[in-house]
């Protein structure tokens, strides 16, 4: 079975989804991420979906539940790089991805995570 690699970049975890995901692969990623956050104490997760040609309700639900799980484990998730055609379709499908933060690209996503951390340290 395919397994999506998770990279560590300082206090953040990085996931690039490059394959047309099978449902089971998506579920496995969810579990792998949860245990990596727990093990590493990572404070942020970046999920790059720029190679994804569609996001259906299953993938949408996975992104929302990864964000939720990460939040409980004290990490912020940002989904980056959604293609415009995917975004248009997602909205028409009726998925609003509640609780999922998004950014245009990796760079913006990284900044968002760094800002979130910096704000926390200020308090």
């Amino acid at each position, binding site marked *: 079975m395919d397994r999506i690699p998770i990279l560590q970049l300082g206090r953040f975890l990085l996931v690039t989804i490059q394959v047309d995901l099978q449902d089971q692969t998506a579920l496995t990623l969810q579990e792998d991420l949860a245990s990596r956050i727990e093990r590493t104490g990572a404070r942020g997760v970046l999920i790059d979906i720029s190679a994804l*040609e569609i996001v*259906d309700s299953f993938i949408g639900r996975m992104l929302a539940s990864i964000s939720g799980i990460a939040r409980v484990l004290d990490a912020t998730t940002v989904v980056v790089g959604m293609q415009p055609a995917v975004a248009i379709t997602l909205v028409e499908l009726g998925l609003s991805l509640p609780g999922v933060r998004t950014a245009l690209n990796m760079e913006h996503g990284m900044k968002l995570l760094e800002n979130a951390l910096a704000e926390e340290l200020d308090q």
Partner: protein
Amino acid sequence: MSDPTIGSMPLGNEQDIVMSRQQVRRLAQQLKFSLVDQTKMVTAASELSRNTVVYGGGGEMRWEVVSLGPRQGLRLAFADQGPGIPDLDLALTDGWTSGGGLGMGLSGSRRLVDEFDIRTAPGEGTCVTITRWK
């Protein structure tokens, strides 16, 4: 190689859901659908294929390139011989799911296409037909 304009493939498991997406992408590209239209049709196919596998106990996807005068379109049918849908109005409501889904598959894919038709009867299965015109 171009696909014949009519055909079918089995929908029995998760791998078949991935293959149905790929097949619909190929067909939509051959018809020169815009990228957004391709994406909508592939997304609708993904939702309906999954329903066929998960709730219908498996079945098949049939495709057909249809024309109306100068217009061409892609018609897909997702058919199973599963339990059927007892309350169709309910099933077509945004957010209603009998399982652990988001309940957006049927109602959402209906918004992604030009024509949407469901035939279902308790104990006799379900067939959802969608068409998108170029």
